[in-house]
């Protein structure tokens, strides 16, 4: 029993963070939004970093890593509000296709040529895809209408919800950092507004929320990886707490920014809009809350101190 990221997993997180910090500054988010597409160099970088192959089985030329590594990368993508939908292909579509023996598209995903748009009945849209364009509040999400035939595969839903939860954690972390940075420099009444307890305590609440969301997401990733029978419960748990962390941090962050937070000029809104979008994706909050409810109150999942890990 070791509830701790391995050295390799820490190294993966650190190197991906360093890579994104260097190649994907907020300016690239802004640029992608105004030009309508992400710079080709961003995707090329993802391919060169091996992130497109992260969860592709080794037999198909991938790195063959697990859902926890995938979730760690999804969190980093959230931190920088990655303007490329590739991770949805690499972290959701690739492992699902591989697990279902549909390996034809894996090469294209690995090489960054395909988004492998997936239609699932949980989502009224497809990310990428060839249908009619739908307009998301998140200018970086290229959504199209969902086809008539959509998957109802629970594994696909669970992978999608897990990676979304991890990305929401990263989004929340970044929004909290943006709000803290602003609170340190914005002066009113002769001092930084971050010196006021009314500001401090709201931001501290976000930190509490995040501290107790992260381990739930990693736990869900392990459950999915290990094939734990209760994995759907843990994935739903992760999606709910990550959604709540991101949603409440977004509201706090805009409040701390004051009127500046309501402008297009401040970067915060990109992260906030992504959070709203992901809150509903791959099973909305109430869907997952109901799934927890059904397992706990309606079902026979063992609960109590003896069953921390089930």
């Amino acid at each position, binding site marked *: 029993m070791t509830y701790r990221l391995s050295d390799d997993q820490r190294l993966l997180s650190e190197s991906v963070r360093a890579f994104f910090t260097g190649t994907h500054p907020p300016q690239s988010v802004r640029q992608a939004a105004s030009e309508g597409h992400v710079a080709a160099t961003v995707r090329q970088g993802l391919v060169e970093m091996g992130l497109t192959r992260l969860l592709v089985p080794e037999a198909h030329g991938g790195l063959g890593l697990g859902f926890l590594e995938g979730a760690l990368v999804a969190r980093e993508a959230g931190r920088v509000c990655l303007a490329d939908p590739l991770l949805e292909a690499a972290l959701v579509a690739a492992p699902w296709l591989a697990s279902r023996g549909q390996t034809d598209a894996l090469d294209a995903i690995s090489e960054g040529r395909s988004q492998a748009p997936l239609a699932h009945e949980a989502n009224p849209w497809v990310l990428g895809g060839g249908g009619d364009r739908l307009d998301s509040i998140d200018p970086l999400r290229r959504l199209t209408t969902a086809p008539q035939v959509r998957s109802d595969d629970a594994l696909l839903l669970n992978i999608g919800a897990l990676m979304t939860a991890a990305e929401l954690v990263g989004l929340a972390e970044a929004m909290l950092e943006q709000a803290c940075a602003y609170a340190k420099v914005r002066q009113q009444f002769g001092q930084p507004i971050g010196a006021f*307890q009314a500001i*401090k305590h709201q931001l501290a609440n976000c930190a509490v929320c995040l501290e107790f969301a992260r381990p739930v997401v990693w736990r869900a990733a392990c459950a999915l990886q290990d094939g734990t029978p209760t994995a759907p419960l843990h994935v739903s748990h992760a999606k709910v707490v990550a959604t709540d962390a991101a949603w409440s941090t977004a509201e706090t962050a805009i409040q701390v920014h004051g009127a500046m937070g309501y402008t297009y000029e401040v970067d915060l809104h990109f992260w906030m809009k992504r959070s709203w979008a992901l809150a509903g994706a791959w099973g909305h909050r109430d869907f997952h809350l109901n799934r*927890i409810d059904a397992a706990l109150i309606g079902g026979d999942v063992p609960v*109590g101190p*003896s069953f*921390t*890990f089930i």
Partner: protein
Amino acid sequence: MKLQYTPEQQAFRAEVRAWMAAHVPKEPLLTLEGRQGYDQHVAWERELAGGNWGMVTWDEAYGGRGLNLIEWLIFEEEYWAAGAPLRVNQNGIFLLGPTIMDVGTAKQKARFLPPMARGETIWAQAWSEPNAGSDMAAITCRADRDGDHYVLNGQKTWSSRGAFADWAFGLFRSDRDSKRHKGLSFIVFDLNSPGITRRPIRQLHGNPGFAEIFFDNVRTPVENRLGGEGDGWNVAMATAGFERGLMLRSPGRFQAAAQRLIELYRANASHAAPSTREAVVRAWSAAQAYAYNTYAVAADIMAGGRIGAESSLNKIFWSELDRAMHRTAMHLLGAGAELRRFADGAVNDWLEGYVFSLSGPIYAGSNEIQRNIVAERLLGLPRAGAG
């Protein structure tokens, strides 16, 4: 990450479970805040010690089993799953004990730890003073050096277990001219020393849960100082870190409450509102999250890490979770919630638990202070008044 227990850990869990099943009192004990209940809880500490369960993480030389933090968590899980009583000596085993382990001399360890593990010496804390609550650096209680003794004078208050305990620990100003955090020393003392007057304070439920302690030229040997003279603040902060961070409230306690809350909900489902149902789900959600986080903190410490300001995040989380869970139970109990005993004679422990939960966000450093610590030390926000 490896979220499976080893066969040895599973065997250890089975051993704890079997012992608890055979020894946990069938009838709940009276509250440890009253004389009779306090004595019952002390007897329970000694029964635990009889099974060598006093403090499983301590070295065998000090009355422990030399187990690691994962095994401590397993012990705690089975302890709370069995419905075992509160630990009347928690100030000793969870707060002072780790501090002695950290900064105590070999002689101090040998002297204080074994009787603590055996439940022979029950400890009270003595931090607060009438004018030093949240602002603990405003302490004025004095410890004046007189040869190989300190002479203690002043007043402490809100001393948990102070009404009945044997010994206590606290901060005293050993440098008369010092200010704030400097010049304080961490001193332990016998509560039955000449010159000490204890005045129990009646709590809102009517029991004398904590006490004022008055010092009138109380002599305590210099060897009862933990850490260096004048270094008391740092020693105390280490104690506070253990308290808030890991040991004081192990997750099993909240998981057990969440489990009981689910059962209470099922029994009252016919008249419960959807919002109450969500509160039940969220109680489980938070208790589980707290457990995962605790396992993560334990793993970090086992890998050589230390608990810092992160412990404030924990303290905020569990204390507000505890209050919310008991509030939800009170709502579910409806018109029966006010009864101290139900019509069948059973103690309404949700009511007792709710009253107790209100103290959680206040003691061990109020949650307002914790939020300041989080904001300033973890988020890097400026201190009040900074220009």
